[in-house]
């Protein structure tokens, strides 16, 4: 009976990160790309919680440091989503599209 170790969680986290990256690369809808970005952030979150759980006791630092970091990641992600969606709405007002293939005005 082999226990579920740190590696298992890290592999799940890596797979989730790659799914998110794939979504950012192949999808062309801005909102779906943004959701894929959230997936990538969540993958990093999962890795940090796993590190925090499996950390051996150390003289300096608390085993809960990873969870504190996740707390900050969640806060920053919420702020990021709010600003990013406001940007998308502003862009949609100007251009009436959310397809990144149509947003080429900065192309040389």
């Amino acid at each position, binding site marked *: 009976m082999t*226990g*579920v170790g*740190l590696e*298992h*969680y*890290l*592999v*799940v986290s*890596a*797979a*989730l*990160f*790659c*799914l*998110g*990256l*794939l979504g950012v*690369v*192949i999808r062309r*809808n801005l*909102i*779906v790309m*943004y*959701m894929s970005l*959230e*997936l990538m952030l*969540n993958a990093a*979150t*999962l890795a940090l*919680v796993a590190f*925090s*759980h*499996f*950390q*051996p006791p150390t003289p300096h630092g*608390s*085993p*809960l440091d990873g*969870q*504190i970091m*996740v*707390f*900050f990641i*969640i*806060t*920053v*992600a*919420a*702020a*990021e*989503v*709010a600003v990013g*969606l*406001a940007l998308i*709405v*502003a862009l*949609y*007002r100007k251009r009436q599209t*959310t*397809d990144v293939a149509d947003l080429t005005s900065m192309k040389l």
Partner: protein
Amino acid sequence: MEILFYIFSALTLLCGALVVFNPFSRNPVTSAMFLVLTIICMSGLFVLLKAFFLAAVQILVYAGAVIVLFLFVIMLMNIKEEERQRFRKFGTFLGAAAVAGLAWILVTTVMNSRTGERSVANNTGETKELGELLFTNYVLPFEIVSLLLLVAMVGCILLSRPEQAPEPIETEEETE
């Protein structure tokens, strides 16, 4: 416990893939719904890792606030069924190949790294300890994050303001 890990991680990855590929419809609303399922399965994984506070925060903040924001924006824009565009075969293939390479590197790195003697540590995420740590060692980042939220709020208001708003300010400056 182990069967729960496998169930939750398989569900997380399945729902994550459905967010990205979304074979059921072209509407981003279904992607957002699958993102909710992904978040809930991930908070199940957090419970397995004994991070109870973070599991609750994950559901509250992501499923409760972030996804609602996504749905609001989708419905605000009133996007019709996005027509299936021409499938850029070359770009998709190249992107998938690059991501597969990254996945291979990550997994082999995790497998080859010696993570010690399978330390079955039972570090629990007690809410009390977490709060104490947040207000002692991490009080400066905590305050900075609160400032960041304020800045984000101001930025959202500024970005979503109607465009003819700045004009009266200019006329006031001219009269001065």
